[in-house]
Structures are given as structure tokens and as C-alpha cells.
């Protein structure tokens, strides 16, 4: 058996942090993505502009740079707001952005931009006849979204979604650079303390592969589910 020099349990904890970070960022990214897609498809000029600005700038800058900007600069920015609240309205609060929250927010923000593009394409791919049919049944806007647009959009969005998730998963490794104790961070700490970099990094690589394989399988099942009613016809 491989000798982990007592770092085994912490490595597992780190793996858990990685998974939690990835899942929470995914939720945030999907929510942001839906909002962005609606903004970009909206007839409102301002919403459209803001959506476009968000997706282009975020996708034009490296994840690591954004992460450092948010993590190192974010707290100072937030403090300036709370300081202003204090001097203007005597409201005394302090909001502490910890590494984990900073990680979730940054990764969520980055992938919200990618998700926005994925969802926009998927919404556009839904046959407009379907929507008209819904309207003809007297469904209101929200009901059309929930029963017709969303489920059919998902069928088109899943390949993009799955792709984004795979990239997101690997992006979580970068939080180790800003100091969050994910599994890459713990592996680097362990490899330096024991001076055996190979052992720990190979294990981390294997865990990433495992997570990737499991999610691939999961997305294949999801795709099957949303394909119901289409596959036979093809």
C-alpha cells in the first residue's frame, strides 16, 4: 500500500471541499446563466448590453487572475461599501468573505458567463411553434417557461452543461493557489513536508478522473431522460 505519512484523512477532507466547492459554484453558475441568457435575449437595450458586457469581459480574462482580483481585492471593495454605510448612515456591519465563499462566488461568476451562452443557444433552439402552441392553450408566460421552454431547452443545453461542468471541476484546482484547503492544496502541503511530490499528486489526479467519470455517466443518464420523445423518432 502507498504510504501517505498520515495525510490520508486530510486528503479526503480536501476532496470533499473540492466537490462541495464545485457543486455550489455549479448551482450559482446555473442561476446566473439563466439570468444572463434572459438578459441577452431580452428586448430591453440595457439588460442586453449588461449581459453582453458580463459574458465578454469574464470570458476574456484568466480564471486565476479573476480569482485573485476577487479574493484579494473583493474584501477591500466590500469594506469600502460597509465603511461608506457607516459614515453615511451609521450602520455598522462587517462582512467577512472567507476563502470558500470567495471561491464559490468567483467560480460561479466565471461559469455563469459560459452557462449564459449555453442556455441562450439552447433557448433559441426550442421550436417557436411549441411556444405558440402553449400560448394557444391559454398558458401564461411563466407556465410556458416551466412546462415547455425549460424542459425542451434542457435537452439542447445538456451537452454544453456537461462540458462546462467538466471545465468547472478542473478550475476548482486553482483555489489552492489563493489558499483554500482543497485537495490540491493539501497534496502540495503534504508533498513538501514529506518531499514526495509524486505520490500525492498522482492520487489527486486519480480522484479528479474518478469524479469526471462519474459525472460523465450521470450526464449520459440525464441526457437520456431529457431526450424522451425524441430518440425513437430520430
Amino acid at each position, binding site marked *: 500500500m502507498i504510504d501517505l*505519512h*498520515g*495525510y490520508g484523512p*486530510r486528503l479526503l*477532507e480536501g476532496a*470533499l*471541499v473540492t466537490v*462541495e466547492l464545485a457543486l*455550489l459554484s455549479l448551482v*450559482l453558475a446555473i442561476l446566473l446563466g439563466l439570468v444572463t441568457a434572459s438578459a441577452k435575449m431580452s428586448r430591453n437595450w440595457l439588460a442586453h448590453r449588461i449581459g453582453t458586457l458580463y459574458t465578454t469581459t469574464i470570458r476574456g480574462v484568466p480564471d486565476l487572475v479573476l480569482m485573485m482580483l476577487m*479574493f*484579494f481585492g473583493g*474584501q*477591500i471593495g466590500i*469594506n469600502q461599501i460597509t465603511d461608506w454605510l457607516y459614515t453615511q448612515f451609521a450602520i*455598522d*456591519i*462587517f*462582512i*467577512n*468573505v*472567507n*476563502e*470558500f*465563499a470567495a471561491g*464559490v*462566488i468567483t467560480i460561479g461568476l466565471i461559469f455563469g458567463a459560459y452557462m449564459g451562452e449555453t442556455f441562450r443557444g439552447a433557448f433559441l433552439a426550442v421550436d417557436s411553434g411549441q411556444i405558440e402552441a402553449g400560448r394557444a392553450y391559454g398558458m401564461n408566460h411563466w407556465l410556458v417557461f416551466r412546462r415547455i421552454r425549460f424542459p425542451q431547452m434542457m435537452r439542447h443545453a445538456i451537452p454544453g452543461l456537461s462540458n462546462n461542468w467538466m471545465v468547472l471541476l478542473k478550475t476548482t484546482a486553482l483555489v489552492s*493557489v*489563493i*489558499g*483554500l*484547503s482543497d485537495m490540491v492544496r493539501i497534496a502540495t*502541503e*503534504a*508533498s*513538501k*513536508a514529506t*518531499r514526495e*511530490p509524486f505520490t500525492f499528486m498522482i492520487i489527486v489526479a486519480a480522484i479528479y478522473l474518478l469524479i469526471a467519470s462519474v459525472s460523465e455517466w450521470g450526464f449520459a443518464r440525464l441526457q437520456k431522460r431529457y431526450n424522451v420523445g425524441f430518440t425513437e423518432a430520430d
Partner: protein
Amino acid sequence: MRLRTTLSLGVLGAAMIVGTVNAEVRDIRIAVDVPYEPMEYRTPEGELTGFDIDLGNALCAEIGIQCEWVVQGWDGIIPGLMARKYDAIMSSMTINEQRREQVLFSDPYITPPSAWFAPADVEIGTPSEETLEGMTIGVQRGTLQDNYVTDMYGDVADVNRYATADDMVLDMDSGRLDAVFLDFPIGKSTLIDSEAGDYKVVGEMITEPKEYFGEGFGIAFRQRDQELADAFNEALATLQEDGTYDEIHSRYFDE
């Protein structure tokens, strides 16, 4: 684990801690950058230990407050203090003028010099522009050693900057570095006394010029927290008198 308990609350908003800020001496959070053996490092189980940790805990006990340690990478450690992520830094931080513009320092609690370390088989005379020409030198990013080496030898030598002292040691082990410039106790503990590799100290202990090397290590506070700094200075004087300081010192440094 702290991260996960905040997380188990589930909602992202819960990961933000909302509290009030006031100026009296209270329970505080102290930032430390690990590993920097023997000043601060972790056991394999993840427990923090080291001279700074033990002395810091003794100081807090003397003042009668609870102190929580927060691990923070060196290059973000001063911005984190100003951003109020924690209330003090006790992490082998040298008191110097450049930092004094940003933070308030306690009295120095230990005064170690800096020194050059090199693999035993590398021939370097007394470090100077001539002897270091073309060499690859390792420093920790954002330290006074980084500033010193960058300003003095940045034009003649390659300066490799590392996030932690350990990264640097690993590269020294693999033969990528010709020399490193470090706080002496850290170099002694991680290079000279370690089993892996064969290292030596090159040249004299360096404590001048003062604009880089300052007056020793101090605890850093935000500038408005004068009461907190006073409380720590008082406690430090007490511990130095009653022998606690010497006892802690002897745990990590052999004379």
C-alpha cells in the same frame, strides 16, 4: 473543519460572518502563514505549532482573551489585516518602515538575522554582485528578503519567487536553485538540520541596511488598534520577566 461547518449551513450567504467592529481589547483572530519552520508549521494531523503559535497563545492567555489562528498565504497577509479578515498578524513579520506605513507593530519579540544558504557543493564566495552573477536565487514572494534581493541583485541574478518557504526548499532539493535568502532560523531548521540534502550557510548573518531588515519580528495590528498593541506589549514584557518566554524559546531553538 471550519470551512465545512460554515458550509453545512447550506446557504451561500451563511458563509459570510456578520459581526460588529469595536475598538476595545476583545477576543481576536491572528493570521499566520505556514509552513515556516520552526516559527510556524503544521503537524501531519494539521495542528498548528511553532514558536509564534506558542508565544501567541501565551500572550493571549496573559491578556485574558481568546485567540483564534487563521492561516493566510504570505502575499495576501497585510491586505487581509487591513480588510479586517483578522485582527493581528503574528507570522515572523519583520518590523520595517515600508510596512509601518501600513500597519502598527508591537515591540519586537525576537530578532533573527537573514542569511544566505546554498547546497554544500555550490561554490559561492561572500555574496556580492560578482559572486552571484548568473546564479538562480530563491526568495519568498513579498518578503523583505525578496525586496532586498530584487533591489540588490535583481539585475545580475535570476530571482525565483515562491509562495511559501517550502516550495523554495523543494526546488533547492531538486537542484534548481543555487542559493536562497531566508530568515536564519527557518533556513537552519528546514535546510541545515533536515535529513534531505546537504546545505551550508554562506557569508555573514545579515541585519543591515535597516530599511530592509528592520528591528526584528513584531506582531502587526491595524493602525487604529493602539490599545490592542499596548496590551500585547505589556503581556510580552511580563512573559519575558517571569521566564515563560525563555521556556517557549528553548522548545524551538537550541542555543
